[in-house]
């Protein structure tokens, strides 16, 4: 059949954004297990669909509250190449502790900004750039923690600018429009509901405090990421 045997492969980058504040304590273990299993589960689904993953990388952003937690507010890694660096990834995820956080809302939007600005693999060919974010509460407004000494320079000024960074099909942002996916495992609170209703390529699994991700819904999310849209 000639050259049609040359297969199409995918380059997949995944960023895990994990709320690591004290209120996450009851179920941070489940979130960490979900994150650790994500690689195997995603590869299983891609294999079922005969989609070859040529390169898979994962990075982690653990977030809390700049004003309350100072230097512990945002813990960010580079991408780990999987499966080669799976031990390092596992150590990193297992080291995340639930602590701090101050008031109820957290600095989840700053974490999202870090994720959007990741060093995505933009080589030619089919790609998936996935951000998976877990939180049990609402977000502060962007810049709420500006008074903190370690608040990052170059952060999106406000939600509107963060929306521009995410982009849309009419005004692409930082990420590849075809490749990007945002999966939220959060309650229906601000700003998560605004994001799910207005940003493109978003899947929102509406979580309840203290609950992990049921296998039923988790498979649906994996299918949504692995399928074309």
């Amino acid at each position, binding site marked *: 059949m000639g*050259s*049609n045997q040359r297969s199409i492969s995918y380059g997949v980058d995944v960023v895990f954004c994990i709320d690591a504040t004290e209120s996450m304590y009851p179920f941070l273990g489940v979130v960490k297990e979900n994150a650790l299993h994500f690689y195997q589960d995603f590869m299983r689904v891609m294999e079922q669909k005969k989609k070859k993953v040529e390169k898979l990388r994962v990075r982690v952003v653990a977030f809390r509250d700049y004003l309350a937690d100072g230097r512990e507010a945002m813990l960010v890694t580079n991408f780990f190449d999987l499966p080669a660096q799976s031990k390092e990834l596992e150590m990193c995820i297992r080291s995340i502790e639930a602590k701090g956080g101050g008031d109820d809302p957290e600095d989840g939007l700053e974490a999202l900004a870090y994720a959007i600005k990741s060093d995505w693999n933009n080589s030619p060919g089919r790609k998936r750039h996935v951000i998976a974010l877990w939180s049990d509460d609402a977000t502060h407004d962007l810049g709420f923690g500006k008074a903190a000494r370690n608040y990052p320079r170059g952060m999106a000024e406000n939600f509107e600018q963060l929306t521009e960074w995410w982009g849309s099909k009419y005004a692409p942002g930082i990420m590849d429009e075809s490749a990007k996916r945002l999966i939220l495992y959060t309650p229906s609170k601000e700003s998560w509901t605004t994001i799910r209703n207005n940003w493109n390529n978003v899947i*929102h699994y509406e979580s309840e405090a203290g609950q992990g991700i049921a296998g039923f*819904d988790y498979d649906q999310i994996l*299918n949504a990421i692995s399928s074309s849209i």
Partner: protein
Amino acid sequence: MKTFAQKLDFRILVAGEMVKDHGEDNFYSVMGENCAVAAVFDGSGGIGSRKYPKYMDHTGAYMASRAVSGAIHDWYHESMESGSGLAKGREAAAQMKEYMLRAIRVVEKNGGATSRIFGTMVKDFPTTAAIAVVRDTEDGTELQCFWAGDSRVYLLDRNGLAQLTEDDLEGKNAMSNLQSDGALTNVVSLDSSFEIHYSRPLRFREKEAYSIFAASDGCFGYVPTPMDFEDLLLGTLEESQSVNSFERKLDENIRSIAGDDYSLAWISFGYGDYPQMKEALKARRQLLQKDYIQPMVEDSSLELQEQLWTKYRGSYERFMSSAGPARNRPEAGDRQLQSGR
């Protein structure tokens, strides 16, 4: 003068699913005294991933493709039984949309509660549709395509493969759509904002020989270039000895590369029999191999693929006007395209 049945050589259907009993594609094919329909529907699993316990945990995408296939069945039979025959162009597109919406609303009503998944990447009962309607006329046969999404209707004749529908995707053409795997911009769903596009009628004289087929992206979306897809079709034709063997081998060959469920509904006209069809397309396969496939086997770079695509594209898009395949234009002023010979 030949009857419609005499002009038609054969119809075949090829379909497969990645996960047993969870295939989200569906198809519809029918032939009447003076017309035929070949259609495929690809439930969009990426945006239709909600599962419905009342439907044995099948997804909205799974249910949508079946509901919409049933809608086109009803549209065809009710149109024929009413005595008015199949409508054309805008009227047909509007009728199809009405039937589709009616069917999806029934499925939604009976579906009951579902999971707590929301977002802009989630739609209720989404599916593509690619429908080829062929009818007999005094001057020959006439083909009109109707579609929403990225499933396609193609024509294959001695001049090669031609895409007749325009993908509702963010990508710019068939080659860039293969590489980017972009999002659908229009798809049939419970949300009634979708559009059923229709093409200008394409007319064929009685002596012309050609095949038309509707295909979901599981068939054509997992080859590196559109040229490879034509090679897959012509290569399968060449290695098969009969219509039955062509249907079986086409299924095998598509299955071997597909990364998704696949459906293909094919109708051939004017060749007389299978050996004559093989003979008529032999020279085209040789040219395709020499000018496109062999060079890509020797040099698999993306640069060469792009360069050859540029050369191939004119023929592949020969029925598309510069503004696309002349969809949804006023019918009174339709240019009646001949099929290029």
